[in-house]
């Protein structure tokens, strides 16, 4: 699984594919206060990104990969 769902944190790992978006969305609907850990994420499909943006989830850890982080910061930080 590219996403590990913990009690109050979703940990995104490696490449998060388009198939995960639905699961992520459902999980965030149930856990609206949950945070997201992107540290080990190398790419995520924009469907997932949309979900994160819409859910306005807090970010626990930004991706280690600088390129991805720059992109995500533009989208996810307010």
């Amino acid at each position, binding site marked *: 699984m590219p996403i590990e769902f913990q009690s109050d944190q979703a940990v995104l790992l490696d490449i998060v594919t*388009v198939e995960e*978006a*639905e699961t*992520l*969305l459902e999980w*965030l*609907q149930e856990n*609206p206060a949950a945070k997201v850990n992107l540290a080990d994420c190398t*790419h*995520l*499909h*924009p*469907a*997932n*990104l*949309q*979900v994160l*943006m*819409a*859910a*306005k989830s807090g970010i626990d850890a930004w991706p280690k990969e600088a*390129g*991805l982080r*720059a*992109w*995500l910061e*533009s*989208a996810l930080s307010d």
Partner: protein
Amino acid sequence: MNPLLEQFLSEARDFLQGISTKLMELEDAPDDAALMGELFRLVHTLKGNSGLFDFPEMTRVLHAGEDLMDAVRNGRVEYSQILADRLLNAMDFVGMLCDEIESEGAMGSTHGTDAARLGESLRELMQSADKAPDESSAPAAGTAADVETPDVQTSARLPLANIAEAARMEAYRRASAGDPLHWLAYAPDEQCFYQGDDPFFLVRQTPELLWGGIEARESWPPLADLDAYACVLDFGLLTAASRPELEEQYRYVIDQVTLTPVAPLALIVPQGDTNGGPVYDDFISDAQELLHAGDLAGLSRSVATMLELSNPELWVASALRWLQLVVESEAATAAATPAIVDALLESLHSMEVPNWEGVDATLLAGESSESAPAPASAPVATLSAALSAEECQALEAIVTAQRAVLSQPEDSGLLPGRIQSAVAALSGCLRACGDQTAVPSLEAVMAEALAANSGAALLAWLDERFPAGALEFTASDAQSPTQSAAESSLDHQSASAQASATSASAASTAAPPAAEGEVKFGRRAEDAIAGPKSLKVDQTKIDRLMGLIGEMVVAKNGLPYLASRAEEKFGVRELSRDIKGHYAVINRIAEEMQDAIMQVRMMPVSFVFQRFPRLVRDISRKLGKDVHLVMEGEDTEADKNIIESLGDPLVHIVRNSLDHGLESPEARADAGKPATGTLSLRAMQESDRVVIEIKDDGQGIDPEVIKRKAYAKGLIDEATLERISNQDAVNLIFAAGLSTAETVSDLSGRGVGMDVVRSAVENVNGSIALTSVLGQGTQLRMSLPLSMAVTNVMIVVSNDQPFGVPMDSVVETVRVPRSSIRTIKRSLATVLRGHVVPLKSLNTLLGIEAPHQPNADDELAVLVVRLGDETLGLLVDDFRETVDIILKPMTGVLASLSAYSGSALMGDGSVLMVLNVKEIL
């Protein structure tokens, strides 16, 4: 090249031809709705076909064409000459792409712009449906015109301020180093996720990416209403890649991308806290002094000191950092543009965003007055601004060519011609650059040159107008008010300039091949059209050829009869030998001819095989099974009819294998097999037959289950149930009405599969055999004739009439003593090598009264035939030779006689009736 692509290319040509024919016809009858409908269908089909391949440029143009035709068809847009022109132009483009694909196997990457332009020109006709399209307001490039130049005003409208300062500074440095800056806005289609696109991945791969940002298209709905799979993201990014690079990267979505060149000056937007911090009046005046004194190093030092003193969060600090950057890059390129620094200092004073308007003008003015190339530090007006690099090269090539033409030794009367053609080419160039005003001066020079009969005057004009390496002039010229018009007509004009340049070269005796850099797709009617290498022939024509060669074979077979008649009846042995000799020659030619015609009808089995990878993938996903498909021998060939008749049976078989044969990964693991099942399709040639083998390593067929099913459905009786062998039981799946699946799925299990398969195979004289090992897999083997054209039959005689029996069903011929024929329960039988063979009389079967004639030893002739898995003896009077015949199916009222599969004409002119053994028994 794969056969599918080959077929596409050959069809595409037909379509293109059809489209242009229809367009021509429409010119005479613009209101013909039927014709319009046909045209639409052609464009539509061609577009659909092109979508199968990876040719986004082609599809895009065709899509635009299709939309336009649809609009015309529905009366929203009126048919016009211009419409026809543009559509023809677009089709030429598609034709050119086809040529390129055919010769190089792939399409060049440089067509993105052309495709977008053509597509736009077609779409434009739809938009401007109300106003009559105006020829002079040339299409397409209109929109491109204002984005080509990175002017500060346009750039300022971009959301550049969102970009982090560090990224903007980096961009400014890159621009100072001469890299083009582009702002790329990408708004992916909402449905793009469903097409498997990952726009984020695409933008992350952008070459020379400097900064990128993602924005939501609208505010987010509550999480419960969110559709995660409708893309509502917009991407914006800053890149230092060139336009062609970006077009290549985004070629699939070029219509969703807007590309705007960015003026580096627009990047200079100081940001930060505007409150607090003194306005350093002293510093500004000091700095201005240093600047005017040309002491950039000093200025840089003083800016650095100032920076150290200010809080980096402040707006002033940001402005200072920019100032430092600008000064540094100025120093590096050793070209002073004090205006920029001045403006920055001014803004530092006023605490407002620097006003570049004045700077821009100064820069431009500065450049037009100098004749040196523009300084690299201020690329605002570099050549790439107005003319793309490609156009620039073309222009340079044209000008160089004219120089070469004019500098040729003046030794003949050709000079006036040369001068005129050079002038024609140059005035084309001037028009293309939007510099109409220079044309009269050029003409004046031409008159002068002609009068002097020397190219010197013109050369001088050239040197003045286009100094070597200073094509920047054209750039700044193009910045004049006529710019947009010039730009919009540029493509057409440069094409005509090219054309005149080429004709100029042709006119002069030994002109260098100068202006061939760029090939345009506007073909002319007189251009040589490369003839297609393959012919598309109506199948009926081939069938006619087949028929003719059949008659030829028959006629040829008459020669041996003639020879024997000559010998026996007229006693001329020598003539008989000659006829036989000649027969051998004709025989050889006829056979070769027959073979050649057969070859025409041959098709590789890949024609049916190629649909399976997709089919297997879809079905196995649906069923949740892992299947590995292996295909072998796709290039094995067989007659078209055979191949075509194979399609449906194969699909049935493959579906059955996937549905019933292969198990789910879990079941496979339990059975100790690899989780991924293997399904192999193999085709091979065995003597004169094609064998196709479908094999899976699934669970196999359980004969017990089949037996019980068959019994339950009443297909076999109790006695059969007891004694039937496993192999025979497995073969029961070919019986009509048997389905082993417990439930009917939409894939298989309705009990209409395998019996249909069997009859389809048997219809083309094929046979099918099934072997299955429970738990290990199933293998189906279809054996089909290579060609249906020639049938090998054995001639038997009964009641003095010859009949043909296909050799496929003949097992052996035996003579059985009348004494060993027994009557068991009113039917005849004999024992042959320890086996009981039931006998049937052909005469009785055909309703002939006469009894069979025994030979001198009181033996009856028995033809043993195979019927399914059984053998059966057919009582006849005598056997004759076997012959190759062209079997003609029965036609007309005779078609209902199922006892005969057809008739054939024999060499002696008699008609041979060929029995359908299965039907009569």
